[in-house]
């Protein structure tokens, strides 16, 4: 089951440049929350702060409070590796491990964390591929084909399956469909809709229609600040802030 996320006073920097200004946000469990905004507004940085991926970039750091369920993400005793194990991430460009088979890709998170039970691993791989709606297309080639031999849309679903195999509580998606064609995109969107039964999903998108289609809640970012955060319907019909309205009506700029 998914867990909720509580963000309080989150700031992030790249070197001396501040890219997030004290963000407060409450993400409800088992819902899809979208993060929208123009390029460079800090939306990617924001989700990368939620699983402490931000700090893997040289000279980048973040401060503030992020609680994912009971876990204090920025607590002094918290291991960032453990955080990332419990908060899965799907990236903009599909990035399967090129030298591994389809099975190897999905099992990578388990194997490289010392998981040894072969039968249980087979089950988890199958379950994850089914959840990611890829099982039927690849079940005969699990060990034969490399992850890189799949099409772009299949690769992205493979990456989703890979994230699901380690059984995270939250799934972060950083523009997961922006490199895909419309058919693959609609598959991913359907998938996101299914996933919220088991996971809390936060999705970054620069496609407003996509946010409207998949998300119950939407946050609008601008220049590193969270301008407005509300039910998606409210954001897209009667936004409270003039800047949100300008952005969603395309009058921005």
């Amino acid at each position, binding site marked *: 089951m998914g867990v909720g996320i509580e963000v309080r006073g989150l700031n992030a920097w790249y070197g001396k440049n501040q890219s997030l200004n004290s963000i407060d946000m409450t993400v409800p469990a088992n819902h899809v929350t979208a993060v929208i905004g123009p390029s460079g507004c800090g939306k990617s940085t924001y989700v990368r702060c939620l699983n402490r*991926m931000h700090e893997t970039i040289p000279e980048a750091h973040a401060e503030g409070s992020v609680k994912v369920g009971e876990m204090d993400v920025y607590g002094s005793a918290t291991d960032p*590796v*453990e955080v990332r194990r419990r908060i899965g991430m799907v*990236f903009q460009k599909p990035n399967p491990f090129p030298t*591994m088979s389809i099975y190897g890709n999905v099992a990578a998170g388990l194997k490289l964390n010392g998981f040894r039970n072969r039968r249980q691993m087979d089950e988890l791989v199958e379950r994850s591929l089914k959840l990611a709606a890829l099982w039927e297309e690849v079940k005969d080639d699990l060990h034969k084909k490399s992850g890189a031999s799949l099409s772009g849309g299949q690769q992205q679903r493979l990456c989703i399956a890979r994230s699901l195999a380690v059984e995270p509580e939250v799934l972060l998606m950083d523009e997961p469909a922006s490199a895909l064609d419309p058919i693959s995109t609609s598959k991913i969107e359907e998938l996101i809709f299914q996933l919220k039964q088991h996971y809390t999903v936060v999705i970054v998108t620069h496609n407003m229609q996509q946010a409207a289609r998949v998300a119950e809640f939407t946050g609008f970012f601008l220049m590193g600040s969270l301008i407005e955060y509300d039910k998606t319907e409210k954001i897209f019909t009667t936004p409270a802030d003039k800047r949100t309205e300008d952005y969603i009506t395309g009058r921005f700029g």
Partner: protein
Amino acid sequence: MPQGISLWRRLTNHGATAFAVSAAVLVLVPLLAIFVYLLIKGIGSVNIAFLTRTPQPPGEVGGGMANAIVGTGLILAIASVLGLPLGIGSGIYLAEYGRNRFGDLIRFTADVLNGVPSIVIGIAVYGLIVIRQKHFSAFSGGVALGIMMIPTVARATEEMLLMVPNVIREAAYGLGIPKWRTTLSVSLRTASAGVITGCMLAFARVAGETAPLLFTAFGNQFWNLKLNQPTAALSLQVYTYAISPYDDWHKQAWAGSLILIILIVGAVAAVRITTSRGMMKGAS
């Protein structure tokens, strides 16, 4: 629509293609010439005795280089055990952790070491190991060749790891895989084809080295499998035989050269075949 392409464009196209083809052929010519010449000169002296017997006393006809063939294998094994892990290890450091002044220093040192003449490395190892142990040895020969392998392997490993896209590392971090595990099981594995090529280049390069072995392995007319005793090596044997006044030894020098080339090519090919086969299998 051929009529749409001007004469000048067709000419330059053919000209450039012809240039590229002749350049490729020119590269192959010396390689083939050496091999064919060795074959002609050496094949006549390659026989069972050559491959199974030790050298005869000077002036006597017959005997072989069996001890040198085994000695070369022994010295190269020592060199690889020493040079490959150290080279790959420092390459990993340079690529994944070495974006700083210390990394620059290591990188500079490796490049300088790469340029040090092999005979100087031989003398250094002579001073450091042979004099202390008070005798020449297979071990000191292996150390000298191993040192020569390190910079090539290190820089090749670094370059190959830097070519692994960062999104691959991020994918691993995102799964909660620790950095050391990511480096070994994801980055290094993704770069493995290139790293193996680097290792084979270094191996092939030192396999035929003679100068660093003159004061270390020293050479031996008899069987020796002990690491702390003087050991024969094909390159040393070829050198000794080639400068000798005996006709039979000259022939054997050619045969030794041929065997050395065949062994190097064979080793490189064997590694290539086994690793390319294991690539996807190991993945599942």
